[in-house]
Every structure is written in structure tokens, then in C-alpha cells.
């Protein structure tokens, strides 16, 4: 069996904002060379986790390790191995593309100027144009270019798709996947645009308020998590209480039942509860469908 070293390990992470619990005893492990996507609704704790990972937030209890070092006290050597993209592609907006490259190049021993300018040369920008006057897509490319030039072993990307149009999102995702896979980089990322994740990630962590809903490989999740659709006039409230039901949504007669159970088990369950389904069928779920199926629409 292949054993992988964990690049990121969070153990029993608990955090509160004031008295509001964000999560309790959260455990995360990201193996070397894996791309993990953290999904969750607004306020589920995605950015909190990213901030703890970068040492910008001290958890109430528990510990996060990156390359075996506590993220609250990362050494400069370990920090140089981490590429960090801040939500909204925030960069030093008072610099232009040359100044920002010159600035960062002094900090990273493996700095690859060419990787940065390969990406920047694709942008339709003026040579001395300030980052503050660039579009969100252009800023995203600058931020990505800087990370590629840094050549980190671990990339932490907070909501990388925020503000990007579909073209830039696709460019970003394809570039990133190719880069990470060809060089064995580990990636930990969050995004609101779930369809982007599908093209990019190996593993998935889905968080809801105060808890983890799923943690595992994306392929396992897409294979095991199912959505069954049917119509009925019967009372289905008992179905929602059954442990095999992950989520049940009902709109008039139309029911959507999300589960890890097999079709046979669900049909037996319906029969057991005296529910007569009409047009019972399973639908292939995209990651976005599955995410909404798992977390609920509201």
C-alpha cells in the first residue's frame, strides 16, 4: 500500500468567534501531491481554516501542522515552501508587474522569473500599469504568476475564483492543475464556484456549520453519494428521520432524496414507510448538485 506523508495535519481543531462556535474537533489531513478542495456555505469556516493554516488566527484549541511545524510558529524556511493566495487575489496594488516581481524575488531562493513573465505576457496590460488599475482577472493572473515563480511545495488558495469571469476561471484552473500535477505540488483550496473544483481537486472536504459533512476522495464521493427523485402525495416526513437519508428536499409533490445508500435500500425504505413513489429514478449528480444535496439549499 502506498503511504503518503501528510503535508497538512489539523488535529482536534476547535474555534469560536466570541461565543459562536465555528467548528469543534475538526481533523484534516492532506497528503503530499494531493489537491484538496474545502467546500462550505458562507460562514461555514473556510476562511477561518485558511487563516489558521497560515498562522493568522490562533484556534481556541487544537493544532495545525504544516510540514510538521505548528502553523502558529512557522519558521521562515517552511513559510518559503508555502504559496498563499488571499481571497480576492489581493496583492500590493501600489506596485506594477515589474516592481512586484522585483520585490518578491528577493525572498525566495527558487524564484523563477520566467514562470512569472510567461503568464504576465499573456495579459493585455501596459508595462507600467499599477495592479490597482487591473481587472480582477488580470490581478488573479499576477497573483498566480507570483506563486508559480515562488515555486512552493504547498499552495493555499483562498476562494481563488472570486470575481473571475468563466474564461479566467478556466485558465486559472487548467494552469493550476497542470502545474500542480506535473510538479507534485500539494494544494489546499477553497472556492465558491463548485464546478471549478470538479476539474481540479483529488480530495474534498465539505463543511457545514459546526461540522464536517464529508471528507475523502472526490471520486469516492461522486460514486457513493446519490440523488433519487420521485413524486408522491404521501407524507414523507418520516423519511427525513431515517439514518440512511442524508437530506430530503420536497417541493409540492416532487421529492429529492440524497443518500449514500443503494437504490435497492432506498426502495425498500420507501416501501417500509408506506410511501408510493411515482417516477422514481436516480440522477447523475454534478459536484454542485451533490454539494447542495448534502448541505441543503438553505
Amino acid at each position, binding site marked *: 500500500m502506498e503511504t503518503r506523508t501528510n503535508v497538512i495535519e489539523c488535529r482536534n481543531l476547535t474555534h469560536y468567534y466570541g461565543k459562536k462556535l465555528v467548528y469543534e474537533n475538526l481533523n484534516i489531513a492532506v497528503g503530499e501531491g494531493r489537491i484538496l478542495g474545502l467546500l462550505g456555505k458562507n460562514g461555514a469556516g473556510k476562511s477561518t481554516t485558511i487563516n489558521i493554516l497560515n498562522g493568522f488566527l*490562533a484556534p481556541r484549541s487544537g493544532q495545525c501542522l504544516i510540514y510538521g511545524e505548528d502553523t502558529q510558529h512557522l519558521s521562515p524556511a517552511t513559510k518559503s515552501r508555502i504559496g498563499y493566495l488571499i481571497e480576492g487575489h489581493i496583492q500590493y496594488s501600489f506596485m506594477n508587474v515589474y516592481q512586484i516581481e522585483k520585490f518578491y524575488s528577493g525572498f525566495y531562493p527558487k524564484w523563477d522569473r520566467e514562470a512569472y513573465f510567461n503568464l504576465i505576457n499573456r495579459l493585455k496590460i501596459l508595462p507600467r500599469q499599477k495592479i490597482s488599475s487591473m481587472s480582477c482577472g488580470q490581478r488573479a493572473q499576477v497573483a498566480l504568476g507570483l506563486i508559480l515563480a515562488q515555486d512552493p511545495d504547498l499552495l493555499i488558495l483562498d476562494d481563488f475564483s472570486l470575481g473571475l469571469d468563466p474564461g479566467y476561471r478556466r485558465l486559472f484552473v487548467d494552469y493550476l492543475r497542470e502545474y500542480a500535477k506535473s510538479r507534485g505540488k500539494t494544494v489546499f483550496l477553497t472556492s465558491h464556484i463548485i464546478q471549478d473544483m470538479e476539474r481540479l481537486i483529488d480530495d474534498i472536504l465539505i463543511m457545514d456549520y459546526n461540522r464536517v459533512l464529508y471528507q475523502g476522495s472526490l471520486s469516492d464521493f461522486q460514486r457513493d453519494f446519490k440523488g433519487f427523485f420521485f413524486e408522491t402525495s404521501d407524507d414523507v416526513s418520516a423519511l427525513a428521520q431515517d439514518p440512511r437519508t442524508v437530506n430530503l428536499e420536497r417541493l409540492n409533490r416532487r421529492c429529492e432524496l440524497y443518500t449514500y445508500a443503494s437504490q435497492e435500500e432506498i426502495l425498500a425504505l420507501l416501501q417500509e414507510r408506506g410511501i408510493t413513489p411515482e417516477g422514481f429514478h436516480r440522477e447523475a449528480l454534478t459536484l454542485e448538485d451533490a454539494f447542495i444535496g448534502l448541505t441543503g439549499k438553505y
Partner: protein
Amino acid sequence: MILRHIFYKEWLKTRWSCLAALVLGLSMVFYLFLRVENGMERLGAKVYMLRVLYDNPPLTYYRMLLYVPLLIAVCVGVTQYLPEVANRRIRLTLHLPVSNTRLVLYMALYGVVMITAVNLILFGVFVAKNCTLFPAEITLPVLRSVAPWFLVAYPAYNFIAMVALEPHRWRQLVYALTGYFTLSPFVVCGEYPGSYFLSVIPLAVMAVASFPLLLYSSYRFSKGL
């Protein structure tokens, strides 16, 4: 090497404001001496100097400089730290592969260097011009009067940085008020030249003592406290 790169970033942020502060400061110094020369022309140099020496209270022709060093500190501090705290951009700096303490110290060192550079130019021009118009008996007490005004720029800069880096609004307010009430008694123009010269001692102590507080604010910022 790292210091050079940090200074480069800080320079890109502050170069125009430093230049503006220098131009404004020099304009004030030149305008001040323009008025002095005008006064000497009108009253005669001897009468003018007698007014500076023996009027009760004496003529404080240099009063116009009172807030200039403070303004320089505000210019440097605000343009240096505002872009960092906007969108919590300082996370970019703190993520650099250098210890956070060192990074913040280098940033603050840059601010101190820039304030000192601008102050030295202004002070130098002021002294040079003063020496051409007045004898040492007038120049020396005047320099003793303006010295605390230049020195107050340093603790003021530290307070500005401390307020900017502090993540909590109410603490920012407390720091700002503390800075204001601590420093405002020293931003005064005494009636007699050199009368507040001894305030350089508490000001120097405050400049040094407030420096570590800046590190405390940056620590709180980086830990999301």
C-alpha cells in the same frame, strides 16, 4: 538583502508622500524666513532682533514650524501602513519567509529613517538660514525650542503604526487617544525660546518605549486577536 527589499516596498508606497512632506516642510521654512526678512526690512534688523530677544513675550518667528515634523510623521505613517491594513494586505508581508518581528521592525525602521531624512533636511536648512540672519545668541535658544518638535515625530509615528496595525476598533481608539493626550503637551511653542527644551528627555524615552508596542499590535493583528 531582505532589508533592501522591504525598504523597496516601503519606498514605493511612501515616496510621493515623503516628497510632498519635504516640499511642504521646505516651503514652510522658506516662507518663515521670507517673513523674517520682510520684518527686518520693515523694522530694521536691529529692532527685529531686539523684539526676538527682549519683547515680553519675545517674538517667536519660528512658531510656524510647530506642527511640521508631526505632519511629516503622519504623512509617512499613514501612507506606509494604510495600504497594508486595507484588505488586511499585511498578511502578504507577514507571509514572507522572514520572522514576523523582523519584518515589522524593518518596516518601522524604514519609517524612522524617512522621518529622520526629511527632518534632517528641514532642520539643516532651518539652522543654515537661521545662522545667516541671526547671531548665535538667538540661534541656539531657538534650536532648543524647535528640537522637541522634531523629536515628537518619532513617538507620533509609533502611535500611528500601532493604531493602524491594531485589529480592534475600540483598541485603536484607545491607542489614538493615548497618543494624542500623551504627546499633545509636548507640541507647544513656549513664550520664551528654549523654555521647553528639557522635554526632549521624556520624548526620547517615549520614542524608544513606544517602539515595542508596535510589535504588540502587529502580533495581535497576525493572530486575529
